């Protein structure tokens, strides 16, 4: 996993509540047995006028008709690394293909009023930082993004702040453990296996007390 420390990136606004993981990466692309290559199909149903199929080559995808009304297709948001959205982002299916698709598309941070729990977790596992901000701050950010082409935010993870171009810093919360992992690009499994002895001891005790769980 890549480290996440400080990010200065273009912001793209997705002004909707309840953006679900089916919308982020439609189910037909879940048939892949790989982790990469989902970017061209991120938000497929909103982004293109036709229905995307899995396994299309790059040239075919590039030739697909795009929906000019979809915000991420607008020239001013090309290359965005920060996604700004509303409440309950990432609800629905637990597919980790959703953060994979966002990452592959180029997003490294998502700012929202709230996130669905599983998606929120999945982001951290892939080096994406999900940031929860109060509704009023989100409103203000939407207004600024709309009004300012090329609008960039700085996200400072060590300081736990989103810094606007006008210098205002908006603090955010992040679990100490998750922050450590992001800052260092640590692999969760390796960290957990440091406790292998404890896991084994727990398991043995459980096996004696409730043997039917181990049938």
């Amino acid at each position, binding site marked *: 996993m890549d480290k996440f420390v400080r990010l200065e990136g273009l912001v793209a606004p997705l002004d909707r509540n309840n953006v679900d993981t089916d919308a982020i990466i439609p189910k037909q692309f879940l048939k892949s047995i790989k982790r990469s290559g989902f970017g061209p199909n991120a938000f497929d149903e909103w982004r293109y006028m036709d229905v995307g199929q899995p396994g299309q080559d790059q040239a075919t995808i590039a030739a697909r008709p795009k929906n000019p009304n979809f915000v991420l297709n607008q020239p001013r948001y090309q290359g965005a690394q920060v996604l700004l959205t509303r409440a309950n982002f990432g609800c629905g299916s637990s597919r980790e293909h959703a953060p994979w698709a966002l990452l592959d598309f180029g997003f490294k941070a998502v700012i929202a009023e709230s996130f669905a729990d599983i998606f929120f977790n999945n982001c951290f596992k892939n080096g994406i930082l999900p940031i929860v901000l109060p509704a009023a701050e989100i409103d203000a950010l939407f207004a600024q993004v709309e009004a300012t082409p090329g609008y960039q935010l700085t996200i400072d993870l060590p300081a736990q702040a989103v810094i606007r171009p006008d210098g205002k810093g908006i603090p955010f919360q992040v679990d100490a453990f998750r922050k450590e992992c992001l800052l260092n690009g640590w692999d969760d499994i390796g960290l957990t296996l440091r406790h292998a002895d404890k*896991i084994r001891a727990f398991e043995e005790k459980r096996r004696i007390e409730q043997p039917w769980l181990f049938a």
Partner: protein
Amino acid sequence: MAQTLYDKLWQSHVVHQEDDGTALIYIDRHLVHEVTSPQAFEGLKLAGRKPWRVSSIVATADHNTPTDHWDKAEGTAAIDDPIARLQVDTLDANIRETGSLAYFPFKDLRQGIVHVVGPENGATLPGMTVVCGDSHTSTHGAFACMAHGIGTSEVEHVMATQCLVQKKSKAMLIRVEGALGKGVTAKDVALAIIGKIGTAGGNGYAIEFAGSAIRGLSMEGRMTLCNMAIEGGARMGFVAVDDTTIEYLRGRSFSPKGDAWDKAVACWRTLVSDEGARFDRVVELRGDQILPQVSWGTSPEMVVSIADNVPDPAKETDPVKREGMERALQYMGLNPNTPIKSIAIDKVFIGSCTNSRIEDLRAAAAVLKGRHVAASVKLALAVPGSGLVKQQAEKEGLDKIFVAAGFEWREPGCSMCLAMNADRLEPGERCASTSNRNFEGRQGPGGRTHLVSPQMAAAAAIAGHFADVRELNI
């Protein structure tokens, strides 16, 4: 101190805890299916890691297996879509190499939707932590389990360590008192709850469902309810153990036997919230006031009763919500204030991990018996949740009732719940569906989904439009 059921489940699984509350939680049961596992197996192999305890794994193929023409070719050769076939074959190869407690491959008698298969085989037992790379793992909470969906990285993490890194959620109690009326089911309770708390209402919470209406539900009904906890934003929902739980588990293949059974039952009896336990939030509903529900929009919280009209965005004061409603109505091709009963449907789907168990099929068949699907309905599908459900239904003659009524009787799988296989809606088609998600494109690009109970789906099939099942003479 008085503990909630959640406190007990949590505490009994903590292996290690950091100062900030981050804990390592031990996982008892790991359910695996073809769509969210290949990258996890690959990751494990690449890192040279061995699975920690393969006897925790129960696996089956369900998401993109076809539900018809199984006999046209041997094994997975009957799967037309080469990409789907590769995924099912990959699961086969992975499980055969790794090992498992149980594996129900494509076409096995016990194959089916992972959340139907686990409980019916007794592989889901009270007090367990149950995880799966699928958000509807909350279903297993019906057995007083801490059960929730995980991402693929976590699938790999569980395989490698038998643990998950977790933080404790807040506890919510949803109490439903008062007996449900005739024609009102667990599905209607679930939809009514989501209508009340919203799809984000449960974010950050673990929900315990309690009250006389919940105690009155069968295990099938409780599974339907817990299944939809995730649609209310909660990763998990559960119901305390009672006689209904224990009776359901008696004699199932992986249920404990003999002395172990008695010991297990004594242990399971403690899986209830103590008198006076404190919850962070309590929500109350009257069971006797819940009517059959029908969703009208593109989120499960967009739901009303069969007696209502499609809501009017003009009456919504929150601008973001209003815009969401307008967008939903446009997608659904509906006008505000239209009576729900006047909405005509094109297709009907009875199935999914929400409503494909034997009780669901019985309930739908009771409505369909001696009746026929309306001529205007293009396709009505009945898809049992598993091979065992299908076998039982056929033993009871339910398949004949479905077929006589004009339904197609299919092989088990997820089917048109998410339309990864050939079962799907065409753009603009409207479906009465017993599944759990009405998101845009869920049942096929441009498809329009209305969530209902099996009885209501059957009633809609007969009428050709939504109808109040209570007004049919059953």
